[in-house]
């Protein structure tokens, strides 16, 4: 399992992550979500041993990463966002190397390499240098390298970025299978539908801190039944705030800048004419309108004020 306790990472005066705590149990897929710059990669870096925390600690399978690093890392598998494979080597050679680096050898290693090759669907092109592979094939191999040593803890940092829909579906299935096999999986993604599909437990981060935590259902419940309305265009923030307060009671302004306005309200589709009327009164120039039904993505926007993919 993964236990993160009071994690803090500071660069000079800048605090990248502050007091982050969570734990992921075996068989659980734990989602770590947040907009760019929220601190997700810093958390992943601290758990993988790439970064040293300023304070707090990380325990993997009951072993402290700082004091018992090599033993803790022995159970850790990583699938980084950027590919981490040797493109001049074949898939077999890559898997053999990464498995060997975790101490596997002999028939145990060769059997496992063959098993993983079949699992990630690269058996028929196993001997080719990977530089000839498509993006999706490289992603699958990247995943294979992370699981070849049967890790008990698996970190996946946006593993489906720049991947075709078919490969993405297969990859998500494989992630689920790893959890079903008993691994504790920490998953970060920009795709909220992936998180909704896979994760048992979610943490949403922004500005280096945890702003929401719970199961998908628990988080959805905090949003209520309100829709999210997003307008792009040109707005005078002070006038918008004033007139919305006076004329559209029960509407919560989530984001208000000169070029974007996000509000949460019940029955937004019925109230759209009123909203446009009000905006027209204050000479707002609306160029785009988006209405979102309550889902994890609208919750994310409500919490962070940002679209996950921006």
């Amino acid at each position, binding site marked *: 399992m993964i236990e993160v306790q009071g994690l803090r990472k500071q660069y000079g005066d800048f605090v990248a992550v502050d007091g982050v705590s969570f734990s992921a149990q075996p068989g659980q897929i734990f989602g770590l979500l947040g907009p760019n710059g929220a601190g997700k990669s810093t958390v992943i870096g601290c758990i993988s041993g*790439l970064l040293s925390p300023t304070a707090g600690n990380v325990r993997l399978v009951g072993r402290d990463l700082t004091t018992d690093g090599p*033993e803790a890392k022995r159970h850790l598998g990583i699938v980084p966002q950027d590919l981490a494979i040797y493109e001049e080597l074949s898939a077999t050679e890559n898997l053999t190397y990464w498995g060997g680096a975790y101490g596997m050898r002999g028939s145990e290693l060769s059997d496992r390499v063959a098993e993983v090759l079949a699992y990630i669907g690269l058996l028929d092109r196993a001997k080719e240098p990977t530089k000839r592979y498509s993006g999706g094939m490289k992603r699958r191999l990247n995943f294979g390298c992370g699981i070849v040593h049967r890790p008990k803890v698996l970190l996946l940092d946006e593993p489906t970025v720049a991947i075709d829909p078919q490969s993405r579906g297969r990859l998500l299935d494989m992630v689920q299978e790893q959890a079903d096999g008993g691994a504790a999986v920490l998953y970060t993604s920009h795709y909220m539908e992936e998180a909704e599909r896979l994760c048992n437990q979610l943490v949403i981060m922004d500005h280096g801190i945890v702003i929401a935590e719970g199961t998908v259902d628990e988080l959805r419940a905090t949003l209520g039944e309100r829709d999210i309305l997003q307008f792009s265009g040109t707005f005078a923030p002070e006038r918008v705030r004033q007139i919305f307060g006076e004329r559209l009671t029960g509407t919560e302004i989530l984001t208000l800048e000169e070029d974007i306005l996000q509000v949460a309200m019940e029955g937004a589709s019925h109230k759209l004419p009123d909203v446009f009327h009000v905006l027209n009164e204050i000479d707002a120039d609306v160029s785009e309108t988006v209405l979102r039904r309550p889902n994890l993505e609208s919750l994310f926007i409500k919490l962070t004020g940002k679209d996950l993919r921006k």
Partner: protein
Amino acid sequence: MHTLWNEVEKEIRRRLGDRWVFLYWVGIPLVIGTIVTVGTGGSAGPKPVVELVVVDRDESFVSSMLLSSFEQGELKERIRVDSVSADVGEELISRGEVSALLIIPSGFGDAVLRDQPTSLTLKTNPAQAILPRIVEEVLNVEVDAVFYAHRIFGEEVRGVVDLIDAFENDGARPDEEAIAAISVQISRVVEQVVPFLLPPAIEVEMIEDPSQSEQHASFAFLFFPGVLMMSTLLIAQGLSGDVWNERESGTLSRMVSMPQGLTCFLTGKLIVAALIFLVISSLLLPAGFYYHAVSFTKLPLASFWLTLAGCSLYLLMLAIQLSCPTRKSAGLFTTLVLFPLMMIGGSFFPFETMPDWMAAIGKWSPNGVMLEHLKRYLLDQHSLIEMLGVAVAVVTGSCVLLVVATAVIRHSFAKG
């Protein structure tokens, strides 16, 4: 041990996937070596000759004696003397077409005979380091000889000069009695001096000075170890840049999260680098040994020496790469270090052709130290004990560089 072998195996597979680089590493020194050999006439080519032009304004018996001294014994093979006019001599030396210009002033012979002050003017070609020095040495020896001749036969010489003056001024022919007296006097002096000279009071045993005997090697041979070291430096730079490939491909970050640690990772790379240096030197050395008639019994130690040099230079280049913020700046900076090292370290020009101060600095450069000991070993001028001392120092320095490189990768480089 198993993880180290795993690392070595992976690196070997990666290197074998890039065979063209091997051809480049072997080809560069072969091409340069061939050009140098052809350009310098090879090991059997002509020895360099001093081109000395002389402006003789005195044209006396003494100046003729001086010039004929350059045509005695071995000097005749090394120095070619041409008498020219002053204008032609100045033009030749200013164009750098000759090694030296010697100007003998009018009245030189008379001054020498009368033991009066006089001076010779020697203008040397600054583009040549060794050849003009031969002329300087010969002239120094002759000045000393004239000094001692005056101390021993000064009175007799003056007697002869007086007779000549009398003949030239008054037309008085020297009488036989005076000539006989001078002859007898010279004979007596010789009789007095001979017991001091023969047999020699000091037996001189000629022991070859290693620094001077380099001239026995052909010009092409002087380039041979330098070209090998140039190849070693180029390979070291090429291999050290691989750490950027590891970082950019994400494999270095994955490596940091692994239990085996970075020391194993870097040691594996170093072992494969050593294998590459060993293979390349084992291919290049026999060709040079065969051509320059060096004993093949020296091959194992010479290969080992080049491998050791290669590993230490690889770690040096790696340390430089790791200290740079970007791949581009690392490439630029290592090149900025590489070329001066090759130039001053004896790879472009042998130390023998450099000014003394530059050669002294170059022999202390990282590649220069290894090159100098390799060359001396090939010329039979070095003891194994001395080489062992240098090897221990190099291994110690390399270990320090390895520890530093590991720490830098772990604490900053791998994090990007």
